[in-house]
């Protein structure tokens, strides 16, 4: 056993180990199964995800550091791990039919989804720059490949190359910032780093490091002006991957952001909060305004997802425990509504129809009332209309901003959410008001129906009874750092 690592460390990373084994099993089964029966791999993948979720149970209230501060196993990480795993499971369910239509081989696909999930889990648990970076790379590389997974499609290839080039560039910037942080503090552990920086005079080099890290993280969460890749990649990537990218990757990047800035750089709070405030404002505004004119729904949802990163940043800027709770709650809720919306798009995908254009939604309500109702609900939820979950999430975010006296940020936020309804309602208009059935009959598959059912139920239940989620998120936010968020910050 290497020095500094004990047997209990292996126990504490049990969920990650289970997931890794699951991924390997998928690869092996892929080789063993005859080609025409490889659709069954989806169930193996789901089993792996289920087993990982089950293995999280013993860590409900654990609060330890693994391998002398490489990883933290706490409720904050746990909360995010649940989000990732649920998102991964929904993505797998969505993919079954999609892969059949595209004729892509499922083995590597599911393996890469599990790898990406593993990377996310490490990002959420990482309290050391090295671990975080390894997690980030694991996730990013998996997504580079997944984005280009539909090999015959030019758009898919273009998406992959764009994502890879820009992603590699941004990782370089992030890494440069991290190296500066290491050089100034002499440690890569975020908690040690926070202690080293505490009470120091603000150093210009540290400010530079903060700016670089913000830029690197900004790329990952697709904040304006680092968002250029998002619309192209979202549009070109296979739809389930777009969904997973916009939910899982985003949530993981926010987890990383919270770890780095709240755990590692609380002493620089004033500086990075200012940066994030500016980012939040332009991200919300640019994202929403750009979304207004899109006619491709995937692209529209890409811009909407950019705007949502802006909303979530409000919670980070507020920085209080209410703000962090709101961030967690919002990411959780966002996962369901965003995945649900993409599931409807997947349902519209036919061999001959892309199902991504606004007109493909024409008269959907007459062709498939349930899909139309589900989409209506997701759109209202993304727009923040009660009684959907999206309202509760936004409500908590804006209340955190008001509580922390960021009144103008809240005003800009709510105005933006009003603007955003214009394009969300546009889809609804196509589905409900346009009479002519423009698109073809959406195919209903049992797996998609399950996805829609789960997403609809979550959107409604969390909108009417969000209390349990709030309590869980609140408990998770409080485990951050040694001293807790509220005391270390405001």
């Amino acid at each position, binding site marked *: 056993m290497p020095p500094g690592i004990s047997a209990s460390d292996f126990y504490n990373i049990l969920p990650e180990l289970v997931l890794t084994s699951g991924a390997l099993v998928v690869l092996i089964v892929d080789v063993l199964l005859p080609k025409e029966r490889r659709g069954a791999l989806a169930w193996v993948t789901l089993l792996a995800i289920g087993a990982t979720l089950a293995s999280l149970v013993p860590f409900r209230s654990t609060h330890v550091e693994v391998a002398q501060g490489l990883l933290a196993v706490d409720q904050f990480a746990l909360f995010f791990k649940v989000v990732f795993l649920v998102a991964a499971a929904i993505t797998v369910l969505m993919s079954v039919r999609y892969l059949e239509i595209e004729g892509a081989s499922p083995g590597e696909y599911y393996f890469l989804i599990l790898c990406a999930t593993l990377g996310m889990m490490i990002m959420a648990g990482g309290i050391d720059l090295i671990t975080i970076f390894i997690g980030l790379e694991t996730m990013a590389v998996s997504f580079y490949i997944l984005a280009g997974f539909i090999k015959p499609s030019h758009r898919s290839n273009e998406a992959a190359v764009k994502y890879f080039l820009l992603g590699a560039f941004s990782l370089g910037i992030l890494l440069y910032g991290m190296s500066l942080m290491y050089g100034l503090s002499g440690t890569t552990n975020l908690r040690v780093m926070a202690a080293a920086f505490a009470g120091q005079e603000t150093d210009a080099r540290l400010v530079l490091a903060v700016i670089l890290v913000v830029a690197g993280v900004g790329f990952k969460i697709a904040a304006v002006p680092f968002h250029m890749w998002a619309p192209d990649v979202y549009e070109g990537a296979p739809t389930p991957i777009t969904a997973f990218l916009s939910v899982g990757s985003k949530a993981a990047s926010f987890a990383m952001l919270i770890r780095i800035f709240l755990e590692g750089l609380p002493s620089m709070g004033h500086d990075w909060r200012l940066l994030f405030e500016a980012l939040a404002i332009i991200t919300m505004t640019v994202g929403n305004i750009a979304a207004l004119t899109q006619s491709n729904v995937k692209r529209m949802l890409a811009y909407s997802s950019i705007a949502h990163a802006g909303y979530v940043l409000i919670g980070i800027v507020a920085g209080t425990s209410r703000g962090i709770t709101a961030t967690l709650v919002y990411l959780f809720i966002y996962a369901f509504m965003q995945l649900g919306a993409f599931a409807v798009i997947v349902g519209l995908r036919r061999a001959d129809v892309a199902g991504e254009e606004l007109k493909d939604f024409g008269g959907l309500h007459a062709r498939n009332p349930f899909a139309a109702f589900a989409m209506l609900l997701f759109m*209202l939820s993304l727009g923040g*209309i*009660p*009684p959907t979950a999206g*309202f509760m999430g936004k*409500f908590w975010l*804006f*209340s955190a901003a*008001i*509580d922390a006296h960021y*009144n103008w940020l*809240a*005003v800009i936020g*709510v*105005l933006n*959410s*009003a603007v955003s*309804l*214009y394009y969300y*309602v546009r889809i609804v*208009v196509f589905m*409900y*008001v346009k009479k002519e059935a423009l698109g073809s009959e959406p195919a209903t598959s049992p797996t998609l129906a399950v996805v829609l059912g789960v997403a609809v139920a979550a959107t409604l239940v969390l909108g009417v009874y969000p209390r349990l989620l709030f309590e869980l998120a609140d408990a998770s936010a409080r485990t951050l750092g040694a001293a807790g968020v509220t005391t270390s910050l405001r």
Partner: protein
Amino acid sequence: MLFMSHYLSIILFTPLAGALLLLLIDKQNESAIRWVANIVAFIGFLVSVPLWFWFTPQGPDFQFVERAPWIPSVGAEWDAITERVKEYYIFLLVLQTGMLGAFMSLDFLLFFLFWEVMLVPMYFLIGIWGSANRLYSAIKFFLYTLVGSVIMLLGILALYFAYHNDPANLGAYSFDITRYQKYAFAANLQWWVFLAFFLGFAIKVPMFPFHTWLPDAHTDAPTAGSVILAAVLLKMGTYGFLRFSLPILPEASRQFVPMMVLLSIIGIVYGALVALAQKDWKRLVAYSSVSHMAMVMLGMFALNPVGITGSIIQQLNHGISTGALFLLVGIVYERRHTRDISEYGGLSKVMPVYAAVFLIMTMSSIGLPTLNGFIGEFLILQGVFVASKVWAAFAASGVVLGAAYMLYLYQRTMFGKVENPKNERLLDLSHREFATFAPLLILAVWMGIYPAPFLHRLETSVQHIILRVSPQYAAKYAECNPLPTPEVVAASSNPAAKFLSAMPCDANGNPLPAAAGRP
């Protein structure tokens, strides 16, 4: 007791239960859907009737009166809606729940939830079943209201945290309106929150210059949509001012009087002048709404008991008369499919009953004595006159202009010869249509001749508001109209006693001659 304590919930969820019931009916079976929807709406009305009698002086609900005009509107669309009948009625019933919920909520967050929930069904009502420009009008209505309401939400949050942060409140988190109404918020905060609320409510009323969504929405909505908009949704805005702005932010309300009065006066005159110039029948009624609602706002911001009472009464009147006018337009539109005033003329000869009903509602809208409109306008003018004679002069000009555009409309459509051959064979009101108007006619006459039951029920609500926003009236109240004692409250649970107890003071707090002789 369990039944009584959940009575409001029963009222609230009756329509929603009806909507769920409709989901189960096959969509081909349109007549069943119509019957179920109408019966459910009527049950919803019936279950709320007892509130009228149970009303106790502390009870904050004056929502029941607001609802009265709503019932006929479902029946009015019996034949007009022929497509997607099922969804139409589901949206109507969901809307009804939203409206009831908003008026009933004593929790600010809940109020906001219902307020927003109403937007979606209303959007669909206009967007799917409306006329030519419906999509534009629907989204305009939706976005306008939404912008106002999200800003209002921030105002609510500001109050919420201010209340929480005051050590006197022991860190309680509360959206309870009754607590807010007893609490004095800092003047600076009040100022900002008033502005936030103003945006939310003024867009809904709508006050000049936020009125531009209203003519579009009204014109393009189906008849029932217009009626609900006029009779209930617009009142959400005035209700908001009365229930939230005035009692929770009294200082700011006083500060903003000049602005509110100026905007109201502009609204009265401008709305009336624009109405005078309209060629579209429904648009004319829509602009008359702008003018009337401005009158309501002016009475409210006179900030004296008469003005506020008049303002509330006038809201009911507006619901009755404008609701009826929209129904009337809807009826000829159904027959002729045009709203162009120049297409009509001489209708009184072909449709005498219609013309009679239209005449009564026109007079009610103008404010002819013995009809309801008079009571409201008179009280408002009286209240405004006490506050400022100049304002009263402008308000009175609104009444004159109101008579001008309504009578001009009546003359153009009802009198003269039947020149357009298409109008020669128009059918008069059917029995079902007449039955729709009957409750409105009865209410209009009842409120015009014997408004005391209505005024009486408003007394304590108005008094609560006045004591917060115009404390100078407190002394007068204490003198001759003390706040209800527990005995009075107990006595008032007997409905008969309430009718018998007379007002010892007039609405401005001056003792009535009869009161002198009382022990």
